[in-house]
C-alpha cells in the first residue's frame, strides 16, 4: 500500500519536473516570438517609409510610378546584409517575388482602415502610404524569423535541472532529510535554468534590436545613394525610423553598439552617408525596457514550479499517514488564499517595489527609468523641505498627549451610567465619525481672520485676533486644535473601555484607607490603565505621523511650509511633481521614522513607569 502510494507521488513529481522545464521553454519561445514580431513590425514600417521616400510618384497622381517602385523593391532583395524577409505589394499584387500569392482584398481593406502596422497571420503588414501620406496604396509584409526552441545555454542548464529534479523525485518516500537536501539542490539547479532562459530572452531581444539597426542603416544608406541631397539633411532621412535619434557622427564602426546617452541606455549604429560623412542612429534597446525585469521573475518562477511541486509531493507523501492533519492544512490555505494573494499583490509586493523605486528615477512621462543608486537619499538629506516637514510632523504629533489628557479627564468624569453621560459620550464621538472634509470646511470658516467666529470670541475676551490658518506662526497650532477636537471622542472611548477593567474593589479599599481622589487616581487607576495609555499614545502618534487630509484641506502645507508634513511632501513629490522615485525614498524615510518611534515609545514609557 505504502509503496504503491509512494510510487504515485514519485511519478507525479517526475511529471511536474518535466512540465515545469517545458513551461520555461514555452515561455522563452513565446517571448522570442514576441520580440521577432516586434522586429518584423518595425522593419516593415521602416521599409514602407523608405519606399515612400525613394519611389517617385506617377504623373498626375499621388500614387507611385509602378515600374520605378518595382525597381526599388527588387533592389532591396539584392541588398547585401539585409536580414529581413520581405514582400512588397502594390495594392494586393506582389512586387518582389512575382510568383508569390497576392494579398487577399480583405487583408488590404483591413490595413486601409486601420492604417497602422499589424500582425496578420504569420506576417506583419505595414501600410505603404502614397506621397501625400493620405491613402494606403500598398503593403509591406515582413515575416518574423522563426525563434529557436533551445539555445546551447538553456540546453546546458536544463540538463542539470532535469537530473536534479529526477533525483529529488526519486528520494520521495525515503529519509526526509535526504529528500529535503535533494529538493534544495533541485531548486538551485532550476534557478540557474530560469536565469539561463532569461538570458535567452534577453539575447533574442538584443539580437532583434541589432538586426533592426542593421537593416535600417542599410535602408538609410540606400536612400542617400538614390537621393544624394539627403546626405545634407538628416531631418529628411529621419522619418524612415520614427522614434529614434539621428545625429551627425564621426565614426566609421559598422557594428551596432550599446552605451549610455544622457543617463539612458541607447543602442546605436553608424550610417555612412558619403565618404567622410556619417550619422549615428540611436534607439532604445529592446533588452533595456522595463518589462525585461519582469521576464526574470517569470522565468525563474516557472522554473521553480518544479521544486515547489516536488516539495509539495514530499509533504503529501509524508502526511499521507496523517490524513486529518493534511486535510486541515489544505483547508487552512484554502481559507487564507484570498487574503494572502491580496496582501501579496497590494502590500508585500508594493513594499519591495518602494525599495526598488527609491533607487531609481521614475516618472510617468519619461519611459527611461534609470538606476540612480543613493542619489534620492542624498537629495533627501540636502532638501531643506524634508527637514522642515519632519520637524512639523514631530511638532504636530504633540497634539496627541494634549488630547489624551483631555480625553482621560472626560473618561474619568463619564465613567458612570446616566442619560446625561450617554448624551455626552455620543457628543464627544461625533467629530470622529463625521466627514473629514466637512469638518475642515467648518473649521476653515470659523478660523476666518476677519469674519470668523473664533476671532470674534478672541476679541470678546480682550485678546488680539489672529490669522489662524494664514500666519506661519499659528497655522500648525490651528491644525492641531482641529485634530484634538476630532480625536477626543475616540480616545475617550478607548479610555472608558479601559476603565471598565479597573476593579471597583481596589478603589473602594483605598477610599476606606483614607486615600484622596488624586491618590486613588495616581496610585491605582493610572498604573492599571498603563497598557491603554500606551495603546492610545502609540496609535495616536502613528496616525499623526501620517496626517495628510487635514493639512491638504486646511492649509495646503502652507503658509511658507509652516504646516508641510512628510505625508504631504510624499503626495506633492509624487502627484504634483511626478517624481515617484523620490517620493518612494520619502516614503521609506517615513517608514523608518515610524518604525523607530513605535519601537521607542514603549521603552521610554516602560522605564518611567518602573522608576515610579
Amino acid at each position, binding site marked *: 500500500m505504502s509503496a504503491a502510494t509512494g510510487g504515485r507521488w514519485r511519478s507525479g513529481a517526475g511529471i511536474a519536473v518535466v512540465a515545469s522545464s517545458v513551461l520555461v521553454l514555452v515561455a522563452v519561445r513565446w517571448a522570442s516570438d514576441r520580440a521577432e514580431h516586434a522586429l518584423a513590425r518595425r522593419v516593415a514600417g521602416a521599409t514602407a517609409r523608405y519606399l515612400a521616400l525613394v519611389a517617385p510618384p506617377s504623373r498626375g497622381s499621388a500614387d507611385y510610378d509602378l515600374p520605378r517602385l518595382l525597381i526599388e523593391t527588387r533592389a532591396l532583395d539584392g541588398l547585401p546584409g539585409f536580414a529581413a524577409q520581405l514582400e512588397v505589394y502594390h495594392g494586393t499584387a506582389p512586387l518582389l517575388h512575382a510568383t508569390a500569392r497576392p494579398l487577399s482584398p480583405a487583408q488590404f481593406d483591413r490595413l486601409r482602415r486601420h492604417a497602422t502596422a499589424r500582425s496578420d497571420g504569420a506576417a506583419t503588414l505595414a501600410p505603404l502610404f502614397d506621397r501625400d501620406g493620405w491613402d494606403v496604396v500598398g503593403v509591406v509584409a515582413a515575416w518574423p524569423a522563426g525563434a529557436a526552441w533551445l539555445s546551447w545555454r538553456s540546453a546546458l542548464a536544463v540538463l542539470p535541472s532535469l537530473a536534479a529534479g529526477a533525483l529529488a523525485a526519486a528520494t520521495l518516500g525515503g529519509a526526509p532529510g535526504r529528500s529535503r537536501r535533494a529538493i534544495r539542490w533541485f531548486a538551485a539547479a532550476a534557478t540557474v535554468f530560469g536565469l539561463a532562459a532569461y538570458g535567452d530572452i534577453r539575447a533574442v531581444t538584443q539580437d532583434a534590436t541589432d538586426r533592426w539597426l542593421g537593416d535600417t542603416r542599410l535602408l538609410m544608406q540606400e536612400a542617400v545613394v538614390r537621393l544624394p541631397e539627403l546626405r545634407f539633411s538628416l531631418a529628411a532621412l529621419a522619418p524612415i525610423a520614427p522614434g529614434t535619434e539621428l545625429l551627425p557622427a564621426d565614426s566609421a564602426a559598422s557594428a551596432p553598439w550599446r552605451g549610455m546617452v544622457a543617463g539612458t541606455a541607447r543602442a546605436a549604429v553608424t550610417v555612412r552617408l558619403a565618404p567622410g560623412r556619417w550619422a549615428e542612429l540611436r534607439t532604445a534597446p529592446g533588452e533595456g525596457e522595463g518589462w525585461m525585469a519582469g521576464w526574470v521573475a517569470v522565468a525563474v518562477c516557472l522554473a521553480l514550479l518544479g521544486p515547489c511541486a516536488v516539495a509539495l509531493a514530499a509533504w503529501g507523501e509524508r502526511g499521507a499517514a496523517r490524513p486529518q492533519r493534511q486535510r*486541515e*492544512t489544505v*483547508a487552512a*490555505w484554502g481559507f*487564507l488564499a*484570498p*487574503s*494572502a494573494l*491580496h*496582501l501579496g499583490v*497590494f*502590500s508585500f509586493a*508594493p*513594499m519591495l*517595489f*518602494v525599495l526598488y*523605486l527609491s533607487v531609481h528615477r*521614475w516618472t510617468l512621462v519619461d519611459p527611461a527609468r534609470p538606476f540612480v543608486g543613493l542619489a534620492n537619499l542624498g537629495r533627501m538629506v540636502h532638501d531643506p523641505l524634508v527637514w522642515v516637514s519632519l520637524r512639523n510632523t514631530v511638532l504636530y504629533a504633540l497634539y496627541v498627549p494634549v488630547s489624551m489628557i483631555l480625553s482621560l*479627564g*472626560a473618561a474619568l*468624569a463619564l465613567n458612570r451610567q446616566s442619560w446625561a453621560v450617554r448624551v*455626552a459620550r455620543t*457628543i*464627544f*464621538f*461625533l467629530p470622529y*465619525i*463625521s*466627514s*473629514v*472634509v*466637512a469638518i475642515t*470646511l467648518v*473649521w476653515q*470658516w470659523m478660523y476666518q481672520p476677519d*469674519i*470668523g*467666529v473664533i476671532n*470674534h470670541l478672541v476679541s470678546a475676551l480682550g485678546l488680539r485676533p489672529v490669522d489662524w490658518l494664514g500666519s506661519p506662526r499659528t497655522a500648525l497650532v490651528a491644525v492641531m486644535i482641529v485634530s484634538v477636537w476630532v480625536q*477626543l471622542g475616540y480616545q475617550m*472611548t478607548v479610555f472608558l*473601555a*479601559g476603565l471598565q477593567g479597573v476593579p471597583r474593589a481596589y478603589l473602594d479599599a483605598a477610599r476606606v484607607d483614607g486615600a484622596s*481622589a488624586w491618590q486613588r487616581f495616581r496610585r491605582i487607576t493610572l498604573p492599571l490603565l498603563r497598557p491603554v495609555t*500606551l495603546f492610545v499614545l502609540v496609535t495616536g502618534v*502613528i496616525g499623526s505621523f*501620517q496626517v495628510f*487630509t487635514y493639512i*491638504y*484641506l486646511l492649509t495646503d502645507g502652507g503658509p511658507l511650509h509652516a504646516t508641510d508634513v512628510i*505625508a504631504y511632501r*510624499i*503626495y506633492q513629490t*509624487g502627484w504634483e511633481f511626478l517624481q515617484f522615485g523620490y*517620493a518612494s525614498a520619502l*516614503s521609506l524615510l*517615513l*517608514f523608518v521614522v*515610524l*518604525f523607530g518611534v513605535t519601537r521607542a515609545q514603549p521603552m521610554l514609557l516602560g522605564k518611567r513607569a518602573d522608576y515610579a
Partner: protein
Amino acid sequence: MRRVGRRVLAGVLVALLAAATIAPFLYMIATALMDEFEVLRYPPPLLPARPHPENFAVALTALPFGRFFLNTAIVAACVVVGQVATSAMAAYAFARLRFPGRDRVFFLYLSVLMVPVVVLLVPRFLIINALGWVDSYTGLISTELVSVWGIFLLRQCFLTIPRDLEDAARLDGAGEWTVFWRVVLPLSKPALATLAVIAFADQWKSFLWPLIATRSAEMSMVEVGIASFHGLYSTNWPYQMAVAVTAVVPLLVFYFVAQKYFIRGIELTGPK
C-alpha cells in the same frame, strides 16, 4: 460636601467640553441657512435672521453630488463585502485550523499593520496605473479588499466561540467549510456587523486614495467631490456649509443607527 462640589465642578467642565465639541456642528447648520451676505457682517451672526433652505438646493446642484454619493455607496458596499468575506475566512484559519507555520503566517499578516498606508501609496498607484485601473471602480476597490485589522478583530471573536459546538458538527461529518458557514459565522454576527459598519464608515470618509486613484468628476467619491466644491465656491460660506451638512448627515444617521458596533469595534481591538 467637598465630594459633591468636586463632582459638580467635573460635570461643569465636561459640559463645557461637550459644548465646545458640538458647537462647530451647530454653527455649520446655522451658517448653511444664512444669506450669502449676512455672514459677512460683524459681529458674526450666530443664527440666520431668516432661514434660507434654498442654499442646499443651489449648492447641491453645482456639482453632480448624486453621482458622488452613488460612487461612494458602490465602492463602500463592494469593500465591505470583500473585507468581511476575506477577513472571516482568514480569521477562521488562524483561530480554528492547525497547520504548520500558522503563527509565523499570522505574524506576517500582522506585520502589514506596521506599514503605514502612506508608504504604500506610490507603489499601489503605479500598480493600478500599469493595470489601467486609474479612474475606475476597480482601482478604488481593489486595494481595499483585505483588512488585517478586520482579520485580527474576527480572530479574537472566533477564539471566544466554544469549540464544543464545532466538534459536534464535525462528528456529524461536516467539513471545514460547513463548520465555518453554518456554525462559526452565525455565532459571530455581531462581530461581522462591527467590521462591516467600521469598514463602511472608513470607505465613506476615505480621502487620500480616492484623491489619487480618480481623476474625473464622474468617478469622484463624496469627500473628494466636496473638496473640489470648496475650490469652486471658496467665498460663499453658506453654500459650503450646506454641502458640509449634506456630507455629515448620512454619516451621523449611520452612526446613530449603528452606534453600539462602533463602540464595540474600539473595545474589541483596543489594548488587551
